[in-house]
């Protein structure tokens, strides 16, 4: 878009933001009331259509709006708390939802009045998500859902879930899946905390027993759920932040601090290994910074697809070293009590926690094995694995 138009758009957006702030002064307005007003003014996500919290403006202008509200001390919608709604449910509803669904769901999703979660993964369908077993059987204008989902964050706080379930077992697995919005208050929904090796329960298991979903809460056509889910998962990618990572940020920081503060821990062997890890941390940081610079000039390369792999490996190596470096102190652990952490906190806890939690970095959100396949196939152009499961009815697959 030409520079001139963009300037005009920015001015217009700033004016609208100031109008909202004038009508609903943050200091005298309930947060939710303010957020609703911001949504209704089209300033929630400016690239969404008018009437759905946006203005059809370029996505890049969102930063202008956010800056204006932040500067004025306006409340935000606590995006981390409602990340799945914002990042995954909303784009999918926008693309595949009916007008009724969009009107019903998007506003309270954005304001945070309704938290969303994602019911995709199952114990038997991890990397092979399309192999899922949760069944949805049609019963007139509703669907009856039975199955088990796992690794669901926010399920214990959620009002709604995006759900994929098998509606036809007679066709190949990718073709028999349908995508729904599931009411988490339905009596057939049972949420149990899923405890991890750290002791904490960041995630949940969700048991679905005779859950009734109205057909009006279906997203996309029957049997088209895999395609709809791809749209959801496209949005899962971790975004690269707008600012450069600092040198010696991340997990290497606490190891370096321990080294500097505790000379008694030092040995020649540990010194060389520490420096090797410091180098690995630095080159990984530089790799991420290079991706950020590529994006900033609008020339993204394939390098971004390797960042999750690189950081998972780095975090695991550094945290493993830290426990060993600490020696006797590394034999201690803070607390095994099962708690519900609001978020992963790599830095406020001990080395043992970091070590254990980082093990998940190469599993959650796509295992490192799957990511290596993706790099090999999409970046390097090597052939895909031979597939035997693409043309077989789901019910006939070995399991």
């Amino acid at each position, binding site marked *: 878009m030409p520079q001139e138009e963009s300037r005009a758009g920015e001015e217009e957006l700033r004016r609208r933001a100031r109008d909202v702030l004038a009508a609903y002064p943050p200091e005298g307005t309930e947060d939710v009331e303010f957020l609703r007003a911001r949504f209704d003014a089209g300033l929630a996500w400016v690239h969404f259509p008018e009437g759905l919290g946006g203005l059809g403006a370029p996505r890049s202008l969102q930063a202008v709006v956010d800056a204006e509200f932040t500067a004025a001390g306006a409340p935000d919608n606590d995006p981390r708390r409602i990340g799945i709604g914002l990042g995954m449910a909303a784009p999918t509803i926008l693309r595949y939802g009916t007008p009724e669904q969009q009107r019903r769901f998007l506003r309270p999703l954005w304001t945070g009045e309704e938290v969303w979660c994602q019911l995709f993964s199952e114990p038997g369908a*991890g990397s092979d998500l399309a192999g899922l077993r949760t069944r949805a059987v049609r019963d007139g204008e509703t669907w009856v859902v039975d199955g088990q989902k796992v690794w669901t964050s926010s399920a214990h706080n959620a009002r709604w879930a995006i759900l994929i379930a098998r509606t036809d077992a007679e066709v190949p697995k990718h073709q028999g899946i349908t995508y729904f919005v599931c009411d988490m208050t339905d009596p057939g929904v049972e949420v149990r905390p899923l405890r991890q*090796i750290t002791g904490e329960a960041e995630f949940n298991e969700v048991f679905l027993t005779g859950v009734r979903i109205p057909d009006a809460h279906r997203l996309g056509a029957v049997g088209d759920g895999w395609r709809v889910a791809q749209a959801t998962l496209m949005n899962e990618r971790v975004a690269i932040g707008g600012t450069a990572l600092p040198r010696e940020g991340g997990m290497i920081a606490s190891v370096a601090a321990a080294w500097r503060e505790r000379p008694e821990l030092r040995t*020649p062997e540990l010194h060389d290994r520490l420096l090797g890890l410091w180098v690995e941390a630095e080159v990984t940081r530089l790799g991420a910074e290079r991706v950020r610079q590529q994006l900033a000039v609008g020339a993204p390369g394939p390098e971004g697809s390797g960042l999750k792999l690189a950081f998972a490996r780095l975090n695991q190596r550094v945290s493993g070293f830290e426990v060993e470096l600490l020696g006797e102190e*590394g034999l201690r*652990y803070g607390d095994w009590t099962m708690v519900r952490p609001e978020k992963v906190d790599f830095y406020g806890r001990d080395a043992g926690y970091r070590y*254990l939690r980082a093990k998940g970095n190469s599993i959650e959100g796509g*295992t490192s*094995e799957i990511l290596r396949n993706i790099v090999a196939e999409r970046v390097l152009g090597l052939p895909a694995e031979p597939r*035997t*499961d693409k043309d077989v009815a789901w019910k006939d697959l070995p399991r």
Partner: protein
Amino acid sequence: MNLLYSEVEDDLRAAVREVLADHCPPGAVLGRVEGGEPYDPALWRVLAADLGLAGLLVPEPLGGQGASAREVAVVLEELGGAVAPVPFLGSAVLATSALLGCDTEDAGVAGLLGRLAAGAETAALAVPLSTAPGSGFPAGVRADAAGRLSGTVTSVADASAAGVLVVPATGPGGPGLYEVAAADAEVAPFVSLDLTRPLADVRLEGAPGRLLPSGDAAAALDAALLTGAGLLASEQLGVAQWCLDETVRYLGQRHQFGRVVGGFQSLKHRLADLWLEVVSARAAARAAADALASAGTAAGVEVRVAQAYLSGVAVRAAEEGVQLHGGIGMTWEHPLHLYLKRAKADEIALGTPGRHRAALGDLVDLPAAGH
């Protein structure tokens, strides 16, 4: 050097394995570790007393089995493979070895060894579990002329299961090993990374101790640490083997993409590499046990090699196990994490691999820079 298992050792393994299968399936261990009593006293009774494992190292005249480090190693392989919550390492290996380095003609020493061998008593050696052989005599506890001990020893393995503490302390006559009733010490368990081997800080405030006669207490202590380090390798072998076996088993039955997951070539190759390491690890662990059995404290090279190698193999096996299990390996309900935590703690226990490599340099005439 005999790197194989004898028939007697095979029989011993079978007996231990049977008891562990009965008393100590992984699920039961998992249920226990968070309770008030992490140790399983019933299991320990069967192992220590009924099977006589607590007295393996104790000569027959003193009431033990008169076996050697080779048999103890086999037991530790099995205990490691079950992450069994019993104080075998602390009592039957470390404390017992220290006592065997004292004057066993002495009635007190002989009596204590007899009670330990019979499973009537359990002991712990009051040193931090992270202590490497060759570290020198610890300075944290002092004994007065009346034999009263004061000081603190952190991170003592199996102390909370022990009735008796064998405490290295410096008294008026120099370094000594003292017998202290656990009841006379403040034994404060803390939250350990390794859920199945609880640690405790031991605080002594004028606790009555009995000096255990010995020619050279520092040497006795160091020999116990060397024995412990060499035999810990067999525990690590047991941990690694379980992780490998369980991962192969799991991947051999799990399907994804219409295929057995264990049939994906990258996983096959990683498991083959891990198997290869476990094969070398077994040879190294056997060498250490055999050398300890035949050469005692002259087994330094074999012990250092085994520790330098096995720590990494056990950690890698557990880490690969978690990764290749995928999500389920990250859950508390699957026992894999007990092995991961044991492996990681064992990496630190009785000396890190780096410390053992450094010590090896001196033993095999590969001196450090500047020397």
